[in-house]
């Protein structure tokens, strides 16, 4: 593999705190030098690339992505998710185990890894199920799943209701030093609720989901994490009270972390408007006060990770009355641009924002990627922070088009994406214009 030097770029690396003009040198898929200041002379046989002042940042690591492979390939395959990820600047994603069959067996993890290598343009990191069949009854073979290549355990969209099972899962995962990534929803309290509980839901005649459906299992999990010493990641928080609980618990343990969906960070309950099912999400979009608390949590370090919660659903299950429609929205291609709104509005610093999509997910999952450091994989992106574009259904690479940002005018776009030094995406003029 040839050497590549990217010059004249604004290097932004949250892990080292670097934000300066400079160049990046890649050899054999690995970063071999990161240097600031004017460009040096490149040795012969090197491909030289002038970045024209674009931001060069580590490729994004998205900690929550669903596909339909195996089982629902018409919604999304690993290949189509890989295309969408590359276009969105996501060079690695954590693949949720909610497929048909469920990823709860070493052979299936092995299948996914091989399949992803053969078809997907970016790194696919399988999360294996915590419980067999995602049923929340018995734990899976954590050791064998880890050997097969699973990077963490998660029950995906499902939330484990039994405290006993969660305790067992955490204790056993600690044996293998593997993180538990858990979606929080107390089922009997969330009930058949479909959106944030409050006056707006009452007016629409939709059943509400109180924030306590999230804070009660969060509180339980934080206590169990302390009891077992497990590495624990609350997959996605949505309410102000959850941030308080997490902030308090983090003072006592470095092994716990949490994430937030870009949807909860940039939208609120009012976006549901006239029963728009692309905004039917789990956790639900909450109040503006909650959203503000999430932004504050991101700024003070309580929130570690921002993810896309990319969840492709076809029109058959989305074009339904609100209460009957499936949850979820796609997000790989709009993750960065939607997140950059917070930078453009002055609410979040660029380094803080990128840290939550690069360094922190890498640390939580134990990856080499997510930083511009010598020896790290050459997964990086070139970004025009101000490039104006519009998210349009016809431009989506994802097989499903259930985007909560459809039609949105965005500023900031990935111009090129590199995985292990190879270009996997280049922006084409006219797209999204």
């Amino acid at each position, binding site marked *: 593999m040839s050497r590549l030097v990217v010059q004249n770029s604004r290097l932004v690396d949250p892990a080292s705190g670097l934000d300066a003009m400079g160049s990046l040198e890649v050899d054999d898929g690995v970063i071999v030098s990161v240097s600031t200041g004017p460009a040096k002379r490149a040795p012969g046989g090197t491909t030289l690339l002038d970045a024209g002042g674009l931001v060069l940042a580590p490729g994004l690591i998205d900690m929550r992505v669903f596909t339909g492979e195996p089982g629902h390939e018409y919604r999304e395959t690993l290949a189509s998710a890989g295309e969408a990820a590359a276009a969105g600047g996501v060079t690695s994603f954590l693949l949720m185990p909610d497929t048909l069959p469920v990823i709860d067996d070493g052979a299936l993890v092995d299948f996914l890894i091989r399949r992803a290598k053969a078809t997907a343009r970016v790194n696919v990191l399988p999360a294996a199920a915590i419980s067999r069949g995602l049923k929340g009854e018995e734990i899976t073979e954590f050791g064998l799943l880890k050997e097969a290549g699973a990077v963490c355990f998660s029950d995906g969209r499902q939330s484990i209701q039994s405290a006993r099972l969660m305790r067992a899962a955490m204790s056993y995962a600690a044996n293998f030093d593997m993180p538990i990534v858990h979606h929080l929803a107390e089922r009997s309290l969330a009930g058949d609720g479909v959106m944030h509980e*409050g006056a707006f*839901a009452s007016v*629409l*005649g939709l059943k*509400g989901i109180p924030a306590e459906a999230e804070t009660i299992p969060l509180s339980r999990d934080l206590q169990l994490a302390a009891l077992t010493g497990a590495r624990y990641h609350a997959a996605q928080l949505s309410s102000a009270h959850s941030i308080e609980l997490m902030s308090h618990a983090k003072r006592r343990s470095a092994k716990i972390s949490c994430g937030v969906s870009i949807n909860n960070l940039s939208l609120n309950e009012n976006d549901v408007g*006239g*029963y728009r099912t692309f905004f039917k999400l789990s956790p639900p979009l909450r109040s503006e006060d909650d959203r503000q608390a999430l932004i504050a949590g991101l700024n003070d370090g309580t929130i570690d990770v921002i993810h896309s919660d990319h969840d492709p659903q076809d029109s058959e299950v989305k*074009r*339904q*009355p609100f209460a009957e429609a499936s949850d979820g929205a796609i997000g790989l291609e709009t993750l960065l641009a939607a997140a950059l709104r917070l930078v453009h509005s002055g609410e979040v610093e660029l380094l803080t924002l990128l840290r939550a999509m690069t360094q922190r997910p890498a640390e939580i999952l134990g990856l080499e990627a997510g930083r511009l450091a010598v020896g790290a994989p050459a997964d990086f992106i070139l970004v025009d922070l101000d490039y104006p574009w519009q998210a349009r259904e016809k431009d989506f690479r994802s097989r499903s088009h259930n985007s909560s940002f459809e039609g949105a005018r965005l500023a900031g776009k990935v111009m090129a994406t590199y995985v292990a030094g190879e270009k996997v995406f280049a922006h084409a003029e006219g797209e999204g214009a």
Partner: protein
Amino acid sequence: MAESSPESTEEIRPRGAWPRFSKKHLLGIAELNAFEIVDLIDRAEAMVPVSRQERKSLPTLSGKTQINLFFENSTRTQGSFEIAGKRLGAQVMNMSVKTSSVAKGETLIDTAATLNAMRPDVIVVRHSASGAVHLLAQKVGCSVINAGDGTHEHPTQALLDALTIRRHKGRLNSLTVAICGDIAHSRVARSNLLLLGALQIRTRVIAPRTLLPAGIESMASEVFTDMREGLRDADVVMMLRLQHERAAGRMIPSTREYYRFYGLDAEKLSFAKPDVIVMHPGPMNRGVEIDPAIADGPRSVITDQVEMGVAVRMAVLDALLAEKNEQNA
């Protein structure tokens, strides 16, 4: 009661007497302003004599097709819409769709597309999911009337309730209306609160906390959990049906406890004004939310509501459809 009752159909709805009704659909009270609400009530008032004549018909919808698409069973609402359509000369088709067969494959959108291809002029829809009627209205070319969607809205019920109140009280202003019962799961309560709120009428809701929706304070003028306090000096009491199969043990401990604290009996009603009227959208659970002696007693206007229901539905069908004809003519 002052009742303007012209005898001939010509006088009832003189052509062009009403300003054109600007809406294509009637999906909810939330989409109407105070003028449109009063306009529909006035139109309904004028329809009342039609049903009291020997020849109960107006030709205004002749040649039009009305489909009653009911995903939930409702004998009385469906019947009311059917009679209303027929009295205006429309061809009325009733379609009851069992939810199970829809769940098995055909989506609401498929059903809408199929019906739309039959070129109806209006579809009257009832569905168990809030917002389902709005979704359907986006997918068809004709007018759509919401005959109840989930726990969201039931606009013709609120209009007929308002008409009933106005005919008994002679006015809609300076009244106190108390709505009592399962507010959380009631589309009737929501539509009534919206309508009364739009007309700036003082509203009270009375229910145990478990049957009040979140944010109710922003929907009603006053919220009571004590029925006697809530009924004090009320001009109108609207009782709601308790879905006791669903509520018992989950939101209330038992129907007998519910009746003790929230059932309307003579003693509790004595706190209201002496000329109070008692309403109920039906079907009633006698002995659960209302004492039979009250339901069938002198203060009850429940059967009047049923009669006004036909008038309101005639007026709504007429407002949405008849004038389009004149426009084209």
